[in-house]
C-alpha cells in the first residue's frame, strides 16, 4: 500500500478529509491546503446562514427580480436544477419550501449573464443535500490540476469522491455504512453518498409534499460526480422503489443501494464496482 497522507478540516457544519496517495508529504500537504482553502471559499458562497452569501441575497429576491451569481453558485444551482428534473422532483434545492409556502418556488437560470430570476414564491435555497458533493467535485478538480490524481475526499462521512487508486490497490475501500459496513466496494474515479435517518433523525423532506421522507432504511448512491451522488442519495430516500427504477433507467452512470436487513441491494445499470 502506498503512503497515504490525511488532512482534516471543519466546514459546512461537518468534517472533511483529504487523503492523498503517492506524493511527497510536503507537496501533498500544500495541495490539500489549497483544496481545503477552496472548500472554505465555496462554503462562503453556498451557505444560507451568512447574510453576505449569494443564497441570502437570492432569498430576498421578489418574483420577477433577478441577480447575477458567482461562478460556483451558478454552477451548483445548475446541477441542482438538473438533478431536480432527473429525479422528478424527489431532490430539490428548495426542499423545505412547502413548510412555509403553499407551492414550490419557481426559478430560472440565465447562462448568458450567469444570473437567476425568481419566477414565483420565495427562493429559500438549502444546498445541504448537494453542496458538500459539489465542493468535493471542485476539490477533486483542483487536486488533479496539482497532479495529485490519487486521492480520496470525504465530506462528513456521508459523501466521498475517489480519484485514481493508490498504487497496487484495486481502489479506495469504501463501506456502505459505518465500521460494520454491510458491504465494501473498491472505488476509483467515482463518488459514493449515503443518506439515512440514523444520525440526524427525520431531517429529509419530500419536496413534493413537504412531509418527511418515507424510507426508514439507508440509501446510497454511486455516480461519477459527488454532486450527483449527494443529490441522488437524498432522492432515493424519497422515491418509491418503482419510481426510483424509472429515475435510474436513463442514467447509465448511476447506481443506488437500498439497505434491506443486513444487505444492500443494488438498483440501476451502472456496473457494480469490485467488492472487497
Amino acid at each position, binding site marked *: 500500500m502506498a503512503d497515504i497522507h490525511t488532512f482534516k478540516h471543519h466546514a459546512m457544519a461537518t468534517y472533511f478529509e483529504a487523503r492523498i496517495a503517492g506524493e511527497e508529504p510536503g*507537496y501533498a500537504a*500544500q495541495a490539500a491546503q489549497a483544496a481545503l482553502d477552496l472548500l472554505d471559499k465555496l462554503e462562503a458562497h453556498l451557505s444560507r446562514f451568512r447574510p453576505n452569501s449569494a443564497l441570502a441575497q437570492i432569498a430576498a429576491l421578489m418574483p420577477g427580480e433577478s441577480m*447575477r451569481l458567482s461562478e460556483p453558485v451558478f454552477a451548483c444551482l445548475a446541477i441542482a436544477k438538473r438533478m431536480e428534473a432527473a429525479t422528478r422532483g424527489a431532490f430539490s434545492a428548495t426542499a423545505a419550501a412547502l413548510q412555509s409556502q403553499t407551492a414550490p418556488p419557481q426559478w430560472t437560470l440565465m447562462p*448568458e*449573464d450567469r444570473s437567476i430570476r425568481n419566477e414565483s414564491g420565495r427562493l429559500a435555497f438549502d444546498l445541504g443535500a448537494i453542496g458538500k458533493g459539489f465542493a468535493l467535485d471542485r476539490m477533486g478538480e483542483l487536486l488533479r490540476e496539482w497532479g495529485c490524481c490519487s486521492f480520496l475526499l470525504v465530506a462528513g462521512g456521508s459523501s466521498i469522491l475517489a480519484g485514481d487508486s493508490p498504487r497496487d490497490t484495486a481502489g479506495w475501500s469504501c463501506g456502505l455504512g459505518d465500521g460494520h459496513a454491510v458491504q465494501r466496494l473498491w472505488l476509483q474515479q467515482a463518488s459514493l453518498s449515503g443518506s439515512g435517518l440514523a444520525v440526524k433523525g427525520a431531517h429529509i423532506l419530500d419536496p413534493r409534499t413537504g412531509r418527511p421522507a418515507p424510507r426508514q432504511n439507508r440509501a446510497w448512491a454511486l455516480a461519477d460526480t459527488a454532486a450527483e451522488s449527494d443529490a441522488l442519495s437524498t432522492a432515493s430516500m424519497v422515491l418509491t422503489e418503482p419510481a426510483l427504477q424509472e429515475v435510474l433507467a436513463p442514467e447509465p452512470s448511476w447506481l443506488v443501494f437500498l439497505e434491506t436487513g443486513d444487505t444492500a441491494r443494488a438498483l440501476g445499470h451502472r456496473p457494480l464496482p469490485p467488492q472487497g
Partner: protein
Amino acid sequence: MVNPLLNRREFIGATAVAGAGLLLDACKSDAGKQAASPHASSSNSLNIALIGYGEEGKILLDSILNIKDVRVVALCDIWDFHRNEGARYLGKIGNEVRAYENYEDLLEKEKDLQAVVIATPDFWHAPMTNAALKTGLHVYCEKMMSNTIDGARSMVQTMRETGKLLQIGHQRRSNPRYLFSLNRLLHEAQFCGRLTAAQAQWNRAVKEDFGWPKKYAMPPALLARYGYKDMHRFRNWRWYKGMGGGPLSDLGAHQIDIFNWWLGTLPRSVMASGGRDYYKDHDWYDNAMVIYEYPLAEGVARAFYQVQTTTSAGGGYFEMFMGDDGTIKMSEDPSICAIYREARATAVSWDDLVQKGYVSPKPVSADAAKVDVRETAQLAEYQIPVFFNKPVHQPHLENFFNAIRGTAKLNCPGDEAFSSEYVIHKANEAVAAQARLVITPEEARA
C-alpha cells in the same frame, strides 16, 4: 436623498422608524472633494483593467462583476496559471479580456481605460499606481499602499500631481454598517459615552504555506524579472521583507485603519511585542500584540490590536470601541457585531434609541419566549439596525466608480489612507525595537 448604495433592503428596522431618511443620509458618500470630473464620454460606462488575479484579485473581480456599467476589458498577472484562469472565468460569461503579463504593456496598449484596480503584492503597488496615475487613469489599489512608507508617500504625491483619484482598499470605510454605526451611533447618539479603549483582533490557525501546482511553476528568469527569488517567495510574499509586511499589514491594516477612522485622530505612540514563533523560515512575525495611545479631547484612549497564529476559535475578527457608557463591536461578519450599554447610561434610554432608529430590538425567538414564564424578567437585547448583504468589497468599489463619475467622493483617498499606513508600519518597527515609539502628526501625514 437616499444613497444608491443603501436601498430599502439594506435597512431593516431603520426604514420603519422616524428619521430613517436622515439615518440613510448618514451613510452616504456625497459628491464634492476628491470627486473627479465626469469622464469626457457621455456614457456612464467605465472600462477598467484588473492588475493582479491572485486571491484578492479574484474577490475583487466577483464584486466588480456585480456592478453595472463597469466593464473589465484587460487583465494582467505575471503567472500564466492565474492569468489564463481569469481570462477563462470572464470568457464564460462572454466578457472577453485582453490578457497581459506585464502591467507596463497593458498601460501602453490599452487606450480606452478609465481606471485600473490593483491587487498585486504590496511591493508592486507604488510603481504600478504611480505609472497608472501618470498614464491618466484613476486607481483603486489594495492595501497596504506599499511595503515602505516612502513608496506610500510617493503614491500620494503622484495622486496630487496628476489630479487623478486614488482609492485605497480599506473596504470597511464604505460598509453601510460601519458608516451608520460611526456616524449615528458613536458620534450622534454618543452611545459609548467617553471613549477610553478600543480593541481589535484577527487570529488564525496554523496552516501550510501556499504551494503551487508543479506543472505551472514559473521559470526562474521570469520570477527574477519581477523581483521574486523563487516560487515559494512568489506565493508567500506577505511573509517576506522587501515584498510585504506580515500579518500586521495583511490583516492588521484593515483594523488599525478603523482605529484611526473611528477615533478621528492619529495615535501619539505605539508599543508592541511579537515574534516568529511558528514559521522559522519567514521574515515577518506570526504573532504580534500592539498598543496605541490616542489623544482624544476628553482624555487618552488606548487601542490594543492582536494578530496571532494560534487558533481561529478566539472569537473571530472584530473591532471594539469601549467607553464608560457602552461598547460597539464591529466586524465584517454581522453575526459578530454587537452593542452593549451600561445600566448607568440613563441619559438616553434604549427606548429613545429605538425610537430614533439608532438601534433595534433583537427579535425574540419562540423558544426564548417560553423562558418568560419564570419570575425573573429577561433583559431586552438590541442590535445595529443595518442589514447589509452585498459582498463586503462591493460598496467600496462602487464608491470608487461613482467618484470617477463625479457622483460621490472617495471614502478612502490615498492621503487619508497614508496616515493609517504610517502607523501600521510603525507597529512593525515597534516589534523590532521592543520599545515605545513616538508618532508625531507631522510625520504621519503625507
